[in-house]
């Protein structure tokens, strides 16, 4: 990887100018701020933290979706199953590890053992991504590109079925969860008691997104991934191996979803269909901001989380998916390509 630091991506600045120039984006920014204030007044700091925890996680899930759609043109409906695999891996690595530490564990090892589960989930996710891409998408891509988006969509739905039922078959339908990763007292910040698990989950999503961002914008391989997203023919012309980039992208996306699942094991527990809700919210995010837009996916993750928390506080949890959906429909009516437009090839039949 070359480290030519003089290259500054224009994406962040262009995003800021777009917020300034783009009316719907401006409206949404103001709207988000209002929601945040409402959440702060009605729920207090813990609810604000909750919003950021889910926002970070939806953003992390949505970044994976945006990557896979932007680079490979796959509408990925098995992304939730990567999340599911993450929860299981974390559960089956973390709980035996904790048991092995005994009844009076070394506090340092005990505090670090959740990370073992989360890192293992990331690794398993990466490998799973490579296998799925090589075994399923690469052969289809080599055979024909006609009707690709539809075919790829159907494949992901199939993968989703096989993986949820495969999980039921092998580990059973039971919920496997943990009450908490870090069994310590909540931290007090500004008089509010904040659960350590949630703080760490937010931290993990932030670090993972930052790493993905850094990888895409500051390394040679990351630049190649963006190049493939923008012009596949151009990428081949400069010597980029499409097969390698596609496999890498899918693996990266699967790994981030698995990390999200592992980091949220205490909230979600592991069961075969645990991935559905994260999948839906990740799709809300990418549809809201525009498919394949990674910077937008990060912002969108937090917007959706704000909507979700505000809905819970104002209308009860039953409405949690209704309100974001209504907002999404409204946004798509006003700005069909999403809030931040589309920076990708879009849905085009080759």
């Amino acid at each position, binding site marked *: 990887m*070359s480290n030519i630091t003089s290259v500054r991506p*224009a994406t962040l600045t262009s995003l800021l100018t777009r917020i300034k120039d783009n009316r719907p984006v401006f409206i949404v920014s103001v709207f988000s701020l209002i929601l945040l204030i409402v959440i702060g007044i009605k729920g207090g700091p813990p609810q604000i933290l909750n919003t950021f925890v889910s926002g970070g996680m939806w953003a992390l899930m949505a970044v994976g979706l945006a990557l896979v759609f932007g680079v490979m043109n796959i509408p990925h409906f098995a992304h939730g199953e990567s999340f599911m695999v993450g929860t299981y891996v974390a559960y089956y690595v973390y709980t035996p590890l904790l048991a092995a530490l005994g009844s009076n564990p070394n506090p340092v090892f005990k505090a670090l053992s959740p990370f073992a589960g989360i890192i293992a989930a990331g690794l398993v996710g990466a490998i799973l991504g490579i296998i799925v891409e090589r075994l399923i998408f690469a052969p289809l891509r080599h055979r024909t590109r006609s009707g690709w988006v539809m075919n790829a969509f159907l494949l992901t739905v199939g993968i989703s079925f096989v993986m949820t039922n495969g999980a039921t078959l092998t580990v059973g339908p039971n919920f496997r969860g943990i009450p908490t990763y870090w069994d310590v007292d909540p931290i007090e910040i500004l008089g509010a008691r904040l659960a350590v698990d949630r703080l760490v989950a937010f931290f993990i999503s932030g670090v993972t997104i930052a790493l993905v961002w850094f990888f895409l914008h500051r390394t*040679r391989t990351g630049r*190649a991934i963006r190049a493939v997203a923008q*012009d596949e023919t*151009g990428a*081949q012309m*400069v*010597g980029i191996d*499409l097969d390698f980039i596609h496999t890498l992208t899918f693996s990266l996306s699967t790994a981030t979803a698995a990390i999200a699942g592992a980091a949220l094991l205490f909230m979600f527990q592991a069961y075969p269909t645990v991935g559905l809700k994260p999948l839906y919210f990740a799709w809300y995010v990418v549809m809201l901001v525009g498919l394949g837009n990674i910077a937008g996916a990060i912002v969108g993750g937090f917007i959706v989380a704000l909507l979700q928390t505000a809905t819970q506080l104002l209308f009860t949890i039953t409405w949690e998916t209704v309100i974001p959906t209504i907002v999404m429909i409204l946004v798509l009516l006003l700005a069909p390509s999403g809030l931040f437009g589309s920076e990708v090839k879009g849905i085009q039949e080759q």
Partner: protein
Amino acid sequence: MLELKNLDSGYDFLQILWDVSLHVDKGEFVALVGPNGAGKSTTLRTVSGLLSPKGGEILFKGKSINKRKAHEISRMGISYVSEQLNLFTDMSVEENLLLGAYALHDTEQQLKTIAFVFELFPRLKERKRQLAGTMSGGERKMLAIARGMMSNPELMLVDEPSLGLQPNLVTDVFRSLQLLRDQGVTILLVEQNVNATLEITDRAYILEQGKIVMEGPSRSVKENEHVRNAYLGI
């Protein structure tokens, strides 16, 4: 350096090139001219690996590259500047150039080539932070040629660089190609601007309806009765 032997090519069931044979020697500046739809771009797309040949053989430095993928051919030293340019429009000029040097792992070499390219196209240096998609047509052509040079190719395939450019920019683009040739780069140029092309190239092939109908030194091709009638309007 490059040799096509009885090449057949086309899209799916539509064959466009029929039995095309041509060769480009090291250091030569060769033109491939002909009317719209003759198969000039198809020839370049086939050599660059974006299309696979239906028959015949493509030899680069004596080795067959028929079965090679586009990125492998690019890494072997053939750089293709397409008519559509295929720039990375949401990236800066500098990032486009760095991607042009994707196959070169040597950072020092990359910086050296970038400096050379900026010397050749000072306009690109002024605009290195600008997004490629926001530049004018002429600037984009220059960027595409510059990106093609970034991999230090031995052979450049350049498709219709003058298309859609205002006349003074056409001169600029042709001058940069001549400079490239002077640097020792072998060039196969596809053009519709027959007059100007025959002025600057060494040798020319005329492609009509997917077949080579004439070849020879550019000067004598220019004097030919058929060419004068059909292309030069004299």
